[in-house]
C-alpha cells in the first residue's frame, strides 16, 4: 500500500493508464473440494476516457477478476498479482483503506438492477448513501447532489423519483439509478458488470448510449464486462476475450474484428446472428463445455472444443504474445486473418441445438 489518501490524485489525463492490472490470479479454497482457479494471470491497462470490454462466458473469470480489484470477494478467495489505480496498489490493501476506494475511485454497476437496489430504501436514500460515504457534506447538499445525479443519468421527473422506491421504477430506470449511485463520487474507473444483460434490447441501447455519453463528459475509464461480443463491438475501444480464467485474445476493437486470430473469439463472432446471412441458416454454436477450473490445465484450456487443436495444445499452454503492437493472442494454431473456417470442423455442432 503506497497511499491511504481517500481520493487518489489523478495525474495528467489521457496518456497515462488509470488502472494497471498485472498477472492477477484468484484461487478459491473450498471445503471438501479442490481449490478453484478462477483467474489465472490477467494483465491489462485502462486509460482515462477509454472503454475496455472483457468478454467471456460464465465461469471464464471475468466477474471474479473485477471483484478482486474492489475487494468484494469472500474470504475464501486467495488473490495474487498486482492492480494499480494510478500508483496505489489495490491488491492486499486492507479493508478500511479499500472502503475509501470503493465507490469513490472505482465504482461498479451490476447486472440485475431489480436485485441490486435495496427494496426497502427510497431511491434518494440509496444514492445519498453513496454520496455521504465519500463526501463530507450536509444533509441538504447530499439530497441536492442525489437529485443532480438523477438528472445526470436523465431520469425524468428526478425530484419525484428521489422519493420513490425501486419497485416503482422500470428496469431501465432502475439501472439509471444504479449508474447514478456509481457516479456519486465521480469515480476514475467505472466497472459495468453485465450492466445491460437483464434489460430488453431497446433499453440496453439507451443505457449504453448514456454510459458512453457520461464517459465522454466525465472522462471516466470504463471496464465493461459482458458475454456479448456484438455489444463490445459497438461500444468498446479495446476488447479482451477470456477463457478458463485466462486472456486468449486482446486487441483494439477494430483490429480484432478485422483480423480475429483466436479460434474461440472467432467462434463467438460466428455465433452472432448476421443480417446479411440468408434466413434459416444454422447459426454456428460452440459445442462442449467450459473447462473445469479445479484443475489447472496442462495445455490450452480451449483445446477440447477447438477445431485447430493439435498434440502441442494438450501439453503446452500457449502464451499471450503480441503479434503486432497492441494485438496479442494465445494460440498455437491461430486462424488466418481472412477467415479460416476449419475452426469448427471437429467441435462444430451439426444439430444446431447447442447454444453457447
Amino acid at each position, binding site marked *: 500500500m503506497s497511499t491511504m489518501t481517500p481520493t487518489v490524485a489523478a495525474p495528467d489525463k489521457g496518456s497515462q493508464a488509470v488502472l494497471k492490472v498485472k498477472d492477477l490470479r484468484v484461487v478459491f*479454497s*473450498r*471445503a*471438501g473440494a479442490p*481449490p478453484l482457479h478462477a483467474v489465472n494471470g490477467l494483465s491489462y491497462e485502462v486509460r482515462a476516457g477509454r472503454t475496455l470490454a472483457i468478454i467471456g462466458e460464465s465461469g471464464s473469470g471475468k466477474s471474479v477478476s473485477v471483484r478482486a480489484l474492489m*475487494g468484494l*470477494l*469472500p*474470504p*475464501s*478467495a*486467495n*488473490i*495474487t498479482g*498486482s492492480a494499480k489505480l494510478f500508483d496505489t*496498489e489495490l*491488491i*492486499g*490493501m*486492507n*479493508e478500511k483503506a479499500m472502503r475509501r476506494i470503493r465507490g469513490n475511485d472505482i465504482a461498479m454497476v451490476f447486472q440485475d438492477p431489480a436485485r441490486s437496489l435495496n427494496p426497502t430504501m427510497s431511491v434518494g436514500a440509496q444514492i445519498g448513501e453513496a454520496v455521504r460515504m465519500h463526501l463530507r457534506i450536509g444533509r441538504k447538499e447530499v439530497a441536492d447532489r442525489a437529485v443532480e445525479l438523477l438528472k445526470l443519468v436523465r431520469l425524468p421527473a428526478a425530484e419525484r423519483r428521489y422519493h420513490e422506491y425501486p419497485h416503482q421504477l422500470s428496469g431501465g430506470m432502475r439501472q439509471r439509478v444504479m449508474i447514478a449511485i456509481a457516479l456519486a463520487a465521480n469515480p476514475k474507473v467505472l466497472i459495468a458488470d453485465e450492466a445491460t444483460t437483464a434489460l430488453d434490447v431497446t433499453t440496453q441501447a439507451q443505457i449504453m448510449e448514456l454510459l458512453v455519453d457520461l464517459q465522454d463528459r466525465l472522462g471516466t475509464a470504463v471496464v465493461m464486462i459482458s458475454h456479448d461480443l456484438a455489444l463490445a463491438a459497438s461500444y468498446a475501444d479495446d476488447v479482451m476475450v477470456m477463457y478458463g480464467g485466462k486472456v486468449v485474445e486482446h486487441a483494439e476493437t477494430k483490429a480484432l474484428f478485422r483480423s480475429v486470430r483466436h479460434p474461440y473469439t472467432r467462434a463467438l463472432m460466428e455465433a452472432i446472428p448476421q443480417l446479411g446471412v440468408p434466413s434459416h441458416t444454422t447459426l454456428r454454436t460452440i459445442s462442449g463445455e467450459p473447462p473445469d477450473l479445479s484443475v489447472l490445465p496442462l495445455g490450452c484450456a480451449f483445446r477440447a472444443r477447438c477445431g485447430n487443436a493439435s498434440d502441442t495444445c494438450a501439453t503446452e499452454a500457449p502464451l499471450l504474445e503480441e503479434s503486432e503492437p497492441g494485438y496479442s493472442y494465445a494460440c498455437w494454431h491461430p486462424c488466418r486473418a481472412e477467415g479460416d473456417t476449419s475452426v469448427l470442423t471437429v467441435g462444430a455442432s451439426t444439430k444446431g441445438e447447442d447454444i453457447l
Partner: protein
Amino acid sequence: MAVTDLTARPTSASVMRASALRRRLLVWVPAGFLLLLMAVCFLGPYVLPLPSPIGGSVLDSALPPGSPGHPLGTDTDGNDVLARLIHGGRSSLFVAITVNSIGLIVGGLIGAVSAYAGGVTDAIIMRALDILIAFPSLVLIIVIAQGLGPSVPTTILALIAFSIPAVARLARAATLRVTSMPFIQAAELSGSPAWRVLLRHIAPNIAPQLLSFLMLGMGIIIVAEGGLSFLGLGIPVPNPSWGNMIFSGQQALSATPLQVLWPSLALLFTVLSFNLLGENLRDEMTGR
C-alpha cells in the same frame, strides 16, 4: 503484498475440513444418542433388571443416588428413579412418535391435496387450518385433555390436533413450490392422473422438508407432552412420564433435590438431539 487480508481470515482448507467433520459429528452424535435412548426405553423394561416404576414402598423413599439396587436413588414415593425415567421416556417417545407419524401423514396429505387441488378446496381447507392455528395450541390441548380426562390416548389426540395444522401448512407451502415447477406440468400434460402426480412427483419432493420438520416436531411434542403431564393433564399419575416426574420432583425439591434433575436432563438431551438432527437435515437440503 501477495495475499489480501481477506485470506488471512480462518477459512483455510484445514479449517474447512474441520468444519465438515464437525458437521458430521453434529449428525451422528445426536442420532446415536437417540437410537440408544430408544433402545433403552423400548427394550430396557424387558431386558434390564429394573424394579417396577410404580407401587414402591414408603420405607424405601428418598434414597440417595448410588443406593444398592437404585443407581439413581428413589423418589419420595419409594419408586426407583431410573426405572421411572426409562418407563417415562418410553411413554414420552411413544406419544411423540405416534403423534408425529399421524400428524405427518394426515397433515401432509391435507396440505398437499389442498395446494394441488387449489381453488375452493384449498380455500376451505386453509380457512379451517387458520382457525386451528389461531388457537393458542396449549389452550386447545388443555380443553381437549381435560374434557376427555387424562390418559395416554387423550394426550395423543390432543397433541395430534396441534400437529396436523402445522404440518399441513408446511406441506401446502412446499407443494405450492413444487407444483410451479415444469416437471409437474410435464407429468400432467403427459396424462398422469392426479393421485399419481401427487404420489410419484410431489410426495418425494416435499418429503425431505417434512422429514426435517418431523425431527423438530418430535422435540416440540415431547416438550408439549411434558407440559401437559406437568399440569396433570397428560399421562396420569402414578404412571411415570418425564413431565409428571418433573412436577413431583418440584414438589419434593427440598427432600430430594436431584429428583427434578434427572427427567429435566433427559428431556433436555432428547429435545436437543432432535433439534440438532432437524436443523442439520434442513441445512443439508438447502445446501447451507
